[in-house]
């Protein structure tokens, strides 16, 4: 299989490009045309969202549509955010996301270090069993886990959404283990001779050398928690506890809102904004993470 070890992937990409002949003028024109048309089609939904969010209510319901609102109605944004308590939903979501990111980084990297470096009888069988659970549909465990949290009295609190993150995520354990395996052993051996124990090696050597992989895990976990819908839908009953995803979904069907698509789009855009920002700043990490776990499968 094509292997793309993370630290080398860029060099390989460049080698691939250099080896290819440049397309002719006509070929290039065709490629550009196709790419530009495709990009236009893919960007229209985003344009439509922003455009609608800046329209007057009347203009949102015009046919043929008003493409560029004039003048843009910036006050739609503060209006949308107070129509439902979106600022509360935001704060709630940020809190859950922060806890799950910290939890998953800690628990997954600890296990990944064990699977990459520490030898023990049965370790590889344990790893295989963990990997097998990746195949398991979420639906299998959904009902009993709900019963468990219900019995603990945790329903209608954030605990069911946060606590599991502190007990490792197989996908991230796998990703981090693969990364740890690419780190040369010499550093650790030197540290070991100087009397470092395993935890010091993990904390002072492995983690600082794995910042790109840890960043990838943080980003994936951020996106996951930020977008999680089923979890908050099942576990959160009271309105003030809602996350942005659930709040937005209720906003769709609420008759308190009515036909106010301009405000809906403003709220949706604000909900997407953290993801958009993260994507533009960390695109490389996204791609590396996906390629790393995907291609190596």
């Amino acid at each position, binding site marked *: 299989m094509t292997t793309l070890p993370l630290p080398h992937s860029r060099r390989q990409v460049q080698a*691939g490009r250099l080896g*290819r002949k440049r397309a002719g003028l006509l070929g290039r024109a065709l490629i550009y045309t196709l790419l530009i048309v495709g990009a236009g089609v893919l960007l229209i939904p985003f344009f439509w969202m922003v455009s609608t969010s800046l329209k007057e209510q009347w203009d949102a319901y015009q*046919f043929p549509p008003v493409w560029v609102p004039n003048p843009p109605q910036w006050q739609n944004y503060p209006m949308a955010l107070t129509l439902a308590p979106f600022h509360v939903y935001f704060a709630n979501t940020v809190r859950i996301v922060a806890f799950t990111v910290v939890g998953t980084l800690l628990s997954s990297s*600890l296990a990944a270090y064990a699977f990459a470096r520490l030898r023990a009888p049965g370790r590889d069988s344990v790893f295989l069993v963990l990997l097998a659970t990746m195949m398991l*549909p979420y639906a299998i465990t959904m009902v009993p886990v709900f019963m468990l949290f219900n019995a603990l009295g945790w329903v209608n609190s954030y605990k069911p959404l946060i606590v599991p993150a502190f007990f490792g995520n197989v996908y991230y354990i796998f990703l981090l283990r693969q990364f740890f395996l690419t780190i040369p052993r010499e550093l650790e051996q030197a540290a070991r001779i100087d009397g470092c124990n395993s935890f010091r090696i993990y904390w002072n050597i492995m983690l600082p050398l794995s910042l790109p992989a840890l960043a990838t895990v943080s980003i994936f976990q951020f996106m996951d928690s930020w977008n999680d819908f*089923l979890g908050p839908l099942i576990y959160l009953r009271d309105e003030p506890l809602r996350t942005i995803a659930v709040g937005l979904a209720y906003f769709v069907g609420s008759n308190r809102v009515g036909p106010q698509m301009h405000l809906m789009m403003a709220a949706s855009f604000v909900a997407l904004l953290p993801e958009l920002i993260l*994507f533009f700043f960390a695109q490389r990490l996204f791609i590396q993470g996906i390629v790393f776990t995907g291609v190596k499968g």
Partner: protein
Amino acid sequence: MVAATAGRPPRRRGRLARREAIECYLFMGLALMGFLTFQAGPIGASAYLSLTDYKLLGAPNFLGLGNFGRMLADPLFWQSLRVTVSYAVVTVPAQLALGLVVALLMNQSVKGIAVFRTIYYLPAVITGVAVAVLWRWILNPEFGVVNAVLSYIGITGPKWLSDPQWALRSLMLMSLWSVGGSMVLNLAALQGIPTELYEAVEIDGGGMWTKFTHITTAMISPVLFFNLVTGIIGTFQEFTRVYVMTRGGPVNSTLFYGLYLYQNAFAYLDMGYASSLAWTLLLIILALTLVVFRTSRLWVYYEGSAERA
């Protein structure tokens, strides 16, 4: 691994190895506890519940395989299976093909390709409720942008999500928006193909088409295979988008399996039946994956394993 420590005196090695083993399991501790609490335990519980009529309130009564018999006679179960399979049959191959075409375009050495890659990849990363809400508006029959564009070229667009004939097709269309995920994987695979292989074809007098059919498709077939498996599994777990966009309607035309399962568990609190639906789902996924694996020998090429095949 064993050979590396073979030179040391045996007793010392035994003590060190034992210590390392204990450390190993300590480091795994949280993950192992998580596995037992949130995976292994619930899997067992779910298997038992699938044989009962558990409804959250009151004790479960043992039904044996009753739930599975009920499933066979449940028209909504069959409907959800029909919806999910027809969606997968269309969108998974379409995503694969389109993803490959886009990746081939992206693999050309033209200026500004990084910008295009960002644009194409963006919709695959941005998911969740906000996107579902946006697409409801895009597909709005009266004021949506799709029907507006269609009207410019003289076509009266369908009613999309509110038409039972079109609702599932609407979701299929929407899925093509996130083709970037498949593109990124294909692109990485394309860039990993050694150029010597193409040069070899050139020396033999082969053209573009020979290169594509003999080198490119063979070398990226593992990625296509991976995309195929994950695509099928993903379709069977489709939930958020359908819940927000259609709730399975109109007239159950978009009742995906994952949605039907959720409804049974948390809307009707029919948790025994929901558990048996979950186990059926697992069996379906396992069967499909097995079929794909079995047939993969015919079309997936793994570098370095040519002799064995």
